[in-house]
């Protein structure tokens, strides 16, 4: 205000102790001049100051970026919904541009009548909506042999959580008719993408007729190109590789196809050299997203919000325990909302930090009674070469400075 800020030729800057803060006592430009109008951004992007909240890839992980992965910046997010713009991507032959007009979906195999649908056809079937997490089976996979990547984005960022709208796979299968399949118990559905990787996966009929969706929208709007526009499969609770993008074909079969992505990859080798296959469900898991290596404590001792995400492919999260002493003692965290089936749950633990170092862990519990295991417990059963399905308890060593590091503890 003119009268009040009269003496206020003082340079803007941080308030001196005991001195009035010029950000308050002086009229700032944004409090006087106009900002952007409603025609400035028909479709908006995050403000420039948030330019570090983006997907990141790890160059040395793959030979190139075309068949590769990037990671959701979970360390910087709150709540449970992942915006499509920063939701991780995994491609096996890059993200393709496929127009709705050029989209075709085939249903064939052991059906009464093989069918071709256009995109428009799909929009005429009854739809459903639900939030689900999608986690790559390789999430946390770089951590089997030891603490490696220093940030929740990199250790746990192969996950996103969106509200999907689409048609139940069951509806489409029934439209083609399952009479020809005979007894459905030992039947499979093979699903395949339109991109050059031709990613295909076999899904047992029981799951196919349960909660699988042929989705065209995520978080209300069309799927993004990098998430399978115009149509992807949503396989709730099951590993992300099965969520075939640019879905082009659904075949009812009497056997698993045992494609490359279900034999060479996405099988889990145990210590004795035998490997588990068909490990579809994502085990219950959680991670503290803040504080964490990329989200250090910016303040000293005193009130501190510890927060993170928990999820289970088998059902809903019923509780999350948090330890600040590396797993000696645990306290029950607060769930922001009751656990939702096969969707992310946000948890909080509000503590009065004494400023001393912490070994921060979280432990998820799900509706089947499963308790997220420690790294040691997991290695006892699975060894070090599993690559996939690492759902161990994560430890962040939070130092007195507030900085955090990915560590393992005894």
């Amino acid at each position, binding site marked *: 205000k003119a009268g009040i800020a009269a003496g206020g030729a003082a340079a803007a800057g941080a308030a001196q102790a005991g001195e009035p803060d010029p950000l308050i006592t002086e009229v700032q430009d944004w409090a006087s001049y106009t900002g952007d109008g409603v025609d400035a951004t028909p479709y908006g992007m995050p403000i420039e100051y948030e330019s570090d909240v983006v997907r990141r890839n790890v160059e040395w992980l*793959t*030979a190139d970026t075309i*068949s590769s992965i990037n990671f959701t910046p979970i360390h910087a997010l709150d709540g449970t919904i992942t915006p499509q713009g920063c939701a991780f991507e995994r491609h*096996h032959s890059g993200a393709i541009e496929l127009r709705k007009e050029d989209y075709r979906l*085939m*249903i064939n195999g052991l059906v*009464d*009548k*093989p*069918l*071709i649908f*256009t995109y428009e*056809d799909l929009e005429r079937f009854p739809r459903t909506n639900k939030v689900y997490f999608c986690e790559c089976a390789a999430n946390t996979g770089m951590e089997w042999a030891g*603490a490696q990547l*220093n*940030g929740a984005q*990199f250790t746990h960022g192969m996950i996103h959580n969106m509200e999907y709208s689409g048609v139940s796979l069951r509806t489409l299968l*029934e*439209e083609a*008719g*399952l*009479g020809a399949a005979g007894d*459905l*118990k030992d039947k499979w559905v093979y699903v*395949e993408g339109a991109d*050059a*990787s*031709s990613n295909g996966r076999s899904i047992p009929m*029981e799951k196919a*007729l349960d909660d699988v969706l042929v989705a065209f929208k995520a978080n209300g709007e069309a799927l993004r190109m990098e998430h399978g526009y115009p149509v992807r499969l949503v396989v709730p609770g099951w590993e992300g590789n099965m969520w075939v993008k640019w879905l082009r074909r659904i075949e009812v*079969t009497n056997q*698993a*196809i*045992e494609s*490359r992505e279900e*034999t*060479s990859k996405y099988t889990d*080798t145990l210590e004795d*050299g*035998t*490997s*588990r*296959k*068909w*490990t*579809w*469900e994502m085990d219950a898991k959680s991670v503290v997203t803040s504080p964490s*290596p*990329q989200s250090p404590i910016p303040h000293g001792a005193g009130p501190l919000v510890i927060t993170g995400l928990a999820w289970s492919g088998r059902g809903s999260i019923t509780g999350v*325990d948090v330890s600040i002493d590396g*797993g*000696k*003692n*645990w306290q029950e965290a607060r769930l922001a909302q009751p656990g939702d089936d096969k969707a992310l749950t946000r948890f909080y633990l509000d503590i009065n930090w004494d400023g001393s170092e912490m070994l921060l862990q979280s432990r998820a519990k799900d509706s089947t009674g499963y*308790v997220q*295991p420690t790294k040691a417990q997991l290695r006892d*059963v699975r060894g070090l*070469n599993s690559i996939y399905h690492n759902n161990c308890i994560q430890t962040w*060593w939070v130092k007195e400075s507030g900085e955090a590091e990915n560590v393992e503890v*005894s």
Partner: protein
Amino acid sequence: TLITAPVVAGEYGLGREALPEEVAAWDVDVAPDGTGLPAGSGSVEYGEEVFAEACAYCHGDFAEGVDNWPKLAGGADTLDHEDPLKTVGSYWPYLSTTWDYVNRSMPFGYAQSLEPDDVYAIVAYILYSNDMVDDDFVLSNENFLEVEMPNAGGFIIDDRETAEAHFWNDSPCMENCKDSVEITMRAMVLDVTPDTE
């Protein structure tokens, strides 16, 4: 959810019947029992040629891999060691998978461009690179199922619910769960994390 047969097929009458040519064009996956294999054949010798031209750039002349691109040969008896080398020879349980993947997904950058005979030849060459067949071997739809995959018996079906039954626990420890806690490994020591500033 129960597996029940649908009440009425074609309830909505949407879509159109797929034509045989269309199904043939897209339904090209190959199953372990050979379902889906087209007629054709190819020799190791011819396979070596095609592989050298279309594949070796990434996978190496002997399918041994280049830089970070996948190795397709080697790794026998490494599965129970540290850092197992998983290749068609050492790991893949079914030959159908190789045929199917090469046919549909390779060469990377120019997928779905190979003729069936080329694919038979390439697969024969990959088997040869893995010391699984001799240099005069010819692979065809006829002898396809005779090839024995070394790790065919190496897989078990997901047994987490039994092998990991102890992860289901009604009352996990909440207090004094261990005597001491020591840091045993630090990510900063490796320093392989991308710089995010």
